[in-house]
């Protein structure tokens, strides 16, 4: 299935793009999408323990299901304010 991946801040810099479209094997979870991404770009792996994830612009979990066309975002620790 095809998903859109959104990356922000340093994760975006490391990947060289803030938006990627990838095919992942189904049935998929956020973890499936992350593994696909890290296989392609191992440098992103350092964020696995500290990042947050979102599906369709709502905070989610690595175990959450992902469906065709979903937007999956990986977020480094935040620093707003």
């Amino acid at each position, binding site marked *: 299935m095809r998903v859109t991946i959104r990356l922000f801040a340093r994760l975006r810099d490391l990947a060289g793009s803030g938006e990627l479209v990838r095919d992942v094997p189904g049935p998929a979870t956020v973890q499936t999408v992350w593994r696909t991404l890290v296989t392609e770009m191992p440098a992103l792996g350092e964020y696995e323990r500290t990042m947050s994830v979102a599906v369709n612009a709502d905070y989610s979990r690595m175990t959450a299901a992902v469906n065709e066309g979903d937007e999956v975002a990986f977020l480094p620790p935040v620093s707003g*304010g």
Partner: protein
Amino acid sequence: MAVPLVAVTNDVLNLQALIDELGRTGSGDGAITPFVGLVRDHNQGRRVEYLEYEAYETLAVRALNRIVDEARQAWTDTRVAVHHRVGRLEIGEASIIIAAASPHRAHAFAACRYTIERVKQIVPIWKHEHFAGGDVWLEGATADPDDEAARQTAYRIACA
């Protein structure tokens, strides 16, 4: 024209507009407390030249709305407005403005403080610091809105 109580914007922030909006809709209020977050010229020993703020805007607006709702649940007579700016900001410019309105000043101060503490915990916005000799992405809290311990920490700070 009504000013939205929550916004993420590239535009220069206008605190008076937030205060006016809260005042226009709350004749029972006895206090409005403002907070203005500024870009400062130093950070962790570095001479900061400017900041670039990046947001996951859709989720950032949702997270700000969540915080405003949390504040209202904690101080039921209190209303909060918050605008966060993104893009390039120069030293001395406002990156965030918050205003809290309440019949009682204690609740207004607390809700205002609670809001900025929660923004730093769960709103998906990042500072890209450009300093003399380089640049660095600042990384603070792992955002988890369901982390009750973090929420309690913000609440305790607000009531200290």
